[in-house]
């Protein structure tokens, strides 16, 4: 039975960074991932990572851009920490081998990105997430004696002791079906977001909100769940991401009249305004009849303005995506895009060290809400977020572990999980199929909980979510084997997705204002007097029988008072 000082769930950027930091802090470390670490969704992050490393730059400027980008919902102490520690982290990455692009002087090249007042995004072509993830994994291979890896193990629940503290996990070895108890003094959740709740989404099939739901189920509060980012440039074809880096290199957005419409919505930053502003602009153009494509539901992204050689060098991935998935040569013609679900600013509430209110449970990366992104995340700040808070959570958890005994888990939790899986396997073939429920959930969320929302639509969505939660209890599966049973894992994931969806809709209904990514047509103004605060959703001590409980927590303001947000 494995037992470690620090156990990390999820091996994306945040998880791997936490593992390396905890190991360097002298702790015994295990990292558990339901896929091979390099398949984690961090690998798809494209454009770059922000840091004020240029001698002409100042981290305060980066911090202000982030605060403004968050529509003043971000906690400024956390933002200050992230932006001030960013340059050192980027240099650390470079030293361990990340192949950041260089400028003519051989120093790190920086590109422009959304919402930034100057160029401060370091990048590797348009595969920055992949490059960093693979380099971190190289380090894990190198230090394999310091970090024990459990690859293709699926965590089914978080372990608790008598006092309700987190002391490990129950996990299933996907290859053999064996269920195992993992003891740990500290657990770091780094399991990513919940994009698959929406359809379409840029997110991979594995992004099903597992950690968010599991933390929620043991009583951790979820914060800012209504803040769901719609990325402005996702392929109309299939929802895949076209990186913001394209606009950073000079690409522009055009409507059916060939107009660069961002001139009207954001006269200063134009196509590089913050993502919520651009998505709303696009959605408005589409709703007002100036969309392109057969269904007039797209917008043109014109990359032909960028010199061809530069596109092939720095935007290679989207050349391939354009060719392979849309039949378009982006160096010669515009590509059709539209806003698509991409990121969840909300998540498990943590402090600046990644600690959640549940003792022994930490969280870092997209699964967490510190909050550095508030109501809207700036491009290239997520890669930064994962690494800074991954590192901090790892260090803090390691330090805490060194001065405490191994807690004792409550008996029977393993049996509960085994029984739950057996129950799924035993379901009769009378309910709906999981794929059907998932599809209805995705379409409902994309219709009512998207760029523009209102009370009626949100209540409708909530009704659908509750019905689907009921139906999911009877959704049957085909695979009754133990080796690589992806079917039963899909049933578990569906449950997690529905929990995340419920929290999102409840929070969206609660926030009666428009801020950041939440825009309510029935409350279109930002209302700092009443709503400059976070919305927290928890299940309450009665194990959730009375449904989600709503509470509020204040926004930490250090230097920057809320002001009107114009781009």
């Amino acid at each position, binding site marked *: 039975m494995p037992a470690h000082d620090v156990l990390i769930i999820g091996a994306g950027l945040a998880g791997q960074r936490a593992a390396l930091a905890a190991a360097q802090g002298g702790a015994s470390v295990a990292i558990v991932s339901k896929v091979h670490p390099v398949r984690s969704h961090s690998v*798809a992050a494209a454009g770059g990572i922000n840091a004020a490393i240029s001698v002409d730059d100042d981290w305060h400027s980066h911090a202000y851009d982030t605060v403004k980008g968050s529509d003043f919902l971000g906690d400024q102490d956390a933002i200050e920490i992230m932006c001030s520690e960013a340059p050192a982290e980027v240099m650390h990455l470079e*030293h361990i081998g990340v192949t950041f692009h260089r400028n003519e002087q*051989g*120093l790190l090249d920086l590109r422009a990105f959304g919402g930034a007042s100057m160029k401060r995004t370091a990048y590797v072509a348009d595969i920055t997430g992949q490059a960093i993830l693979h380099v971190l994994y190289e380090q894990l291979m190198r230090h394999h004696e310091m970090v024990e890896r459990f690859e293709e193990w699926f965590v089914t629940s978080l372990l608790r002791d008598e006092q309700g503290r987190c002391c490990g996990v129950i996990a299933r070895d996907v290859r053999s079906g064996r269920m195992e108890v993992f003891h740990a003094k500290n657990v770091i959740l780094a399991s990513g977001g919940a994009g698959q709740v929406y359809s379409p989404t840029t997110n991979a099939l594995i992004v099903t909100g597992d950690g968010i739901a599991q933390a929620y189920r043991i009583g951790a509060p979820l914060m800012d769940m209504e803040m769901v980012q719609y990325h402005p440039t996702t392929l109309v074809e299939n929802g895949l991401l076209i990186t913001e880096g394209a606009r950073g290199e000079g690409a522009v957005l055009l409507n059916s009249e060939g107009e660069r419409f961002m001139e009207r919505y954001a006269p200063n930053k134009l196509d590089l305004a913050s993502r919520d502003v651009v998505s709303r602009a696009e959605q408005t153009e589409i709703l007002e009849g100036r969309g392109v494509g057969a269904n007039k539901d797209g917008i043109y992204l014109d990359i032909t303005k960028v010199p061809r050689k530069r596109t092939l060098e720095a935007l290679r991935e989207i050349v391939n995506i354009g060719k392979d998935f849309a039949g378009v040569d982006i160096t010669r013609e515009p590509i059709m895009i539209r806003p698509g679900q991409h990121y969840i600013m909300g998540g498990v509430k943590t402090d600046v060290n990644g600690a959640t209110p549940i003792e022994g449970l930490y969280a870092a990366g997209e699964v967490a809400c510190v909050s550095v992104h508030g109501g809207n995340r700036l491009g290239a700040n997520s890669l930064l977020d994962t690494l800074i808070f991954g590192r901090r959570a790892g260090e803090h958890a390691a330090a805490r572990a060194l001065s405490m005994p191994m807690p004792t888990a409550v008996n029977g939790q393993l049996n509960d999980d085994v029984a739950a899986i057996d129950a799924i396997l035993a379901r009769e073939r009378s309910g709906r199929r999981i794929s059907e429920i998932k599809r209805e959930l995705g379409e409902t969320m994309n219709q009512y909980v998207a760029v523009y929302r209102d009370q009626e639509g949100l209540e409708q969505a909530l009704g659908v979510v509750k019905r689907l939660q009921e139906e999911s209890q009877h959704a049957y599966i*085909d695979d009754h084997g133990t080796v690589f*049973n992806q079917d039963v894992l899909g049933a578990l994931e569906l449950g997690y997705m529905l929990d995340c969806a419920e929290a999102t809709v409840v929070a969206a209904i609660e926030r009666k204002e428009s801020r950041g990514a939440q825009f309510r047509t029935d409350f279109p103004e930002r209302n700092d007097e009443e709503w400059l605060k976070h919305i927290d959703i928890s299940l309450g001590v009665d194990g959730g029988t009375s449904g989600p409980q709503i509470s509020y927590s204040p926004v930490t303001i250090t230097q920057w008072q809320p002001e009107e947000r114009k781009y």
Partner: protein
Amino acid sequence: MAETHRPPEQFKLRMRRYDPESGEAPYWDEHTIELEPHRSVLEGILQAKARFDGSIGIRCSCRAAICGSCGVRINGEPGLACHTHLDHARASAKDGVIEIEPMGNMPVIKDLIVDMDAVHWKKIQRVTPWLLAKQPVPEREYVVAKDAMVDVTQSMACIQCGACVSDCLAMEVDPGFIGPAALAKAYRFVGDPRDDRQRERLVDLSEDPQGIFDCTHCFKCVEACPKDVNPMGQIMRLRRIAISDQHIVDANNGERHEAALTTLVRDYGLLHEAELVPRSYGGNSWFGKFHPAAGMELLSLLPTAIKAIARGKIGIKLALFGHKIPAADLQAVKRIYQTVEGRSERYELNLYISGEDEDERTPVGVAAGGTDGGEDPAVAGEGSAS
């Protein structure tokens, strides 16, 4: 032009299934799915999984050819399921049914899921796949030439999907061959100016009998790679750096083989096959054949040589004197050598870096495997004739 949307069609998928718990042999399983023709084979498989049989096992995640999970063989060719259009797959299918099997060279766990740890990742770990940085580490970034970083980005673009490993012909015959993925990864460090152990890495990979000289230069990995990493090209670059820059003369006769081949082509205009083996073993001169090592190798090849002569594949005259080409042509060949060897620096044409300047050139994606596809004839072609 952007693809016009065709309505959904029916496609037949034939998948190779294997249930390790059943005790039975692998079998074929057919399903008919309905999707628009430009959608991917992966979407087809997932529809079959959702509608008909949830027990179909396939690794998949991003659907965007970036995570590397869904490596499979489609109609016998390795690639990513998410990256292959249904209509293209059907067009290349032998009976109109799209055949999907697990990747090769790796043990099958279940259905389309293979054990990559057993083969792929073992080989990756073999090449010390982490930066051994030059000391002292600077306070800020290492200063590195722009082009050098773009150069290794080609190898960094590898998503570890295993498609190249799946169909590597050398690995099929010699499972211990380090292989295309791992050697491409090795180049990522050898070519990185910040790495401190270029020579040690190259000595290691040259002296290993299953290292860089075990590649048979067959291009399978170049075709297989969905990311234009061009693994074979990386292996050839490792050879060039090992031989020309580090002057490594390996015990596998790799260096001697390359030297022999280039010398023979220069002197005869065409490869003098009968000279190639003795020179590879005994040294790059006419007297090489008298070296004991050459003698032993020639002796062991005698049965093959006799068969070849008996079947008319080689004549005694050709064996003794080599091919004869017109004098003007031989002069042209020698001029090529003079031009290339006269350069002060080795010119590594890499389309990944230089990109396309003129509109007349074919788009990058079509010249799959960049380097060799667009090679300038003036550049000396290396490679073994084995």
